[in-house]
């Protein structure tokens, strides 16, 4: 789960991480009493909004409304701006970076900090980034904070504030099941206060059940992806025109790759998982048909999954939805012959191998075979 800046800052505030004052608005008319002067910031789940013109200054209420009107509805890297956040303007003295993320290789959280904040951390030279692992269960120890502050070379009053923020950030990271907590920039104001200029928060989808309060957050899904998600189907829309459905994430990816090698382009990633329940297969096909591909490529490797019950689900979905979308299928597994016969009986195209199926899908798409 990704969080918009204003939502992440609400959560930050709950963990006593200092954030500027701000109000969120979905239309200029919603803006009544913004902190002034302010920054009007587009709320989108994508980086680079500043460069794209999604952050602007305003001095008065009128100007705030005008600027908000310009930003709302903007398209930023494919994301439409539905909300703006009007935030107290900070008197910036220095911009730092602070983040906690998961280091897969070390299987531990990684604490990161830099005196070069305000730019993409990937662009900061490695020797200018402080990085230390945090033993998960014991958490942040004083030595970590000491070494971090030493590297950042900050005055004591600022260091004390950062020490407490680091503790709060890790507390949030653990209690909210975060994959990433990032403050960039972490602003040191000219008056010497430390406050989170921006807020990036990603929470592990697997932990959704522990955080029901975030269940209805707007994510960067297409309406159809959202519908699939609500039904528990792993589905992603891609920019090609061939609907790909397979069982297992790795196999679905490989099927898309094979299709690519054969000159086709996948329009969907749909992982059927381990199911051969005809009802579930049917549900998955309904989503796929709604995505309106020119042809569907089905690839099932079922060691345990029964091929004929998968085929039955396919047949039912196609018949009930009265679709004319052709289906090319490679189904391997228990009762494979019956499955092929069933598909052939409804005018579908069974294939022996994935490679053959992919070739066939490309041919069928362009009017053949």
């Amino acid at each position, binding site marked *: 789960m990704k969080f918009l800046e204003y939502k992440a800052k609400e959560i930050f505030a709950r963990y006593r991480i200092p954030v500027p004052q701000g109000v969120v608005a979905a239309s200029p008319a919603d803006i009544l009493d913004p902190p002034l002067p302010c920054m009007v910031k587009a709320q989108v789940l994508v980086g680079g909004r500043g460069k794209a013109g999604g952050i602007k200054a305003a001095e008065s209420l009128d100007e705030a409304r005008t600027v908000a009107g310009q930003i709302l509805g903007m398209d930023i890297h494919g994301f439409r701006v539905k909300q703006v956040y009007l935030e107290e303007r900070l008197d910036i003295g220095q911009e730092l970076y602070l983040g906690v993320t998961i280091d897969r290789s070390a299987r531990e959280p990684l604490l990161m900090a830099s005196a070069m904040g305000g730019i993409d951390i*990937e662009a900061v030279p490695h020797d200018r980034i402080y990085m230390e692992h945090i033993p998960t269960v014991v958490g942040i120890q004083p030595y970590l904070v000491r070494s971090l502050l030493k590297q950042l070379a900050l005055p004591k009053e600022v260091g004390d504030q950062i020490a407490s923020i680091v503790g709060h950030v890790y507390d949030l990271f653990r209690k909210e099941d975060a994959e990433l907590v990032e403050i960039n920039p972490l602003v040191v104001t000219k008056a010497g206060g430390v406050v989170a200029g921006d807020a990036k928060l990603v929470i592990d989808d697997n932990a959704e059940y522990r955080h029901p309060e975030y269940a209805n957050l707007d994510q960067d899904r297409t309406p159809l992806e959202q519908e699939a998600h609500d039904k528990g189907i792993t589905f*992603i829309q891609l*920019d090609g025109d061939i609907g790909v459905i397979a069982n297992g994430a790795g196999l679905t*990816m490989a099927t898309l790759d094979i299709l690519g090698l054969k000159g086709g382009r996948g329009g969907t990633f749909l992982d059927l998982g381990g199911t051969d329940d005809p009802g579930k297969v049917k549900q998955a096909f309904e989503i796929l048909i709604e995505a309106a591909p020119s042809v569907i490529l089905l690839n099932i490797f079922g060691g345990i999954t029964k091929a004929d019950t998968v085929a039955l689900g396919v047949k039912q979905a196609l018949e009930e939805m009265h679709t004319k979308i052709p289906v090319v299928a490679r189904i391997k597994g228990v009762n494979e012959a019956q499955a092929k016969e069933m598909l052939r009986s409804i005018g579908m195209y069974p294939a022996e191998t994935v490679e053959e199926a992919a070739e066939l899908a490309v041919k069928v798409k362009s009017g053949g075979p």
Partner: protein
Amino acid sequence: MAVLLSKKSRVLVQGITGHQGQFHTRAMLDFGTKVVAGVTPGKGGTKVEGVPVFDGVREAVHRRRANASIIFVPAAYAKDAAIEAIEAGLKLVVIITERIPFHDCLEVMPLARSRGCVVIGPNCPGLASPGQAKMGIMPNQLFKEGDAGVISRSGTLTYEIVNAMTEAGFGQTTCIGIGGDPIIGTSMVDALAMFQKDRKTKRIVVVGEIGGTAEEEAADFIERRVTKPVVAYVAGRTAPPGKRMGHAGAIIQGNRGTAESKVKAFEAAGVPVAEYPVGIPRLLAAT
């Protein structure tokens, strides 16, 4: 021989009374695995497929001398189950369960390491050593005894590749499904080290996918430490950045985790990479 498990392994099934637990207990027994006990809290005293069920892991270990466990319990209870197994002294724990919160794994993995316990998974198809034993959910009929070690981040894609290997006459020592999550107990490098050490394993197949840097680390390790021939496949060459391709671990973030970087790293380490999954046997034929 094989790595990690053998005919002598005494396997415990945690979550044995559930649908998956029952089904795969039968399949593991058919494979020749010594499944000696099951655990489901509250179901102690019953039997599943002739296997005695206990309320807790310690009891199962004490009464049936189990020394390895396979976990099928739901995600919300998997951390508890894994820690119970580790603390009961088991040295091999395979976690099949998918969708376990990452933070639970951040707690389990260092604990396992500190107790000298090898964890496989989570979100994995488990382990199979043909002619020896299976702790997993892979279809039995795919395997054949041989001299290739298989390491994979995925499930059905592994079945596809193992099937192609078996059909082409390349049997396996052990197939390790390391799992598709970001935090896993046994990394690709750990598994490579096991196969490098195993005398029966003469060649190694690595099945990777986009996301993270496991393949790059594996390539580096192969270059420095692996003398046996290694061949690879990498899934997700056409995957777009920023989208999780089903597996929690399979996502391209920024310019990290692309298939291109992984293929390049393997090739630089002298590891040929197959274009198609079924291309693996052809590469093996050249080893």
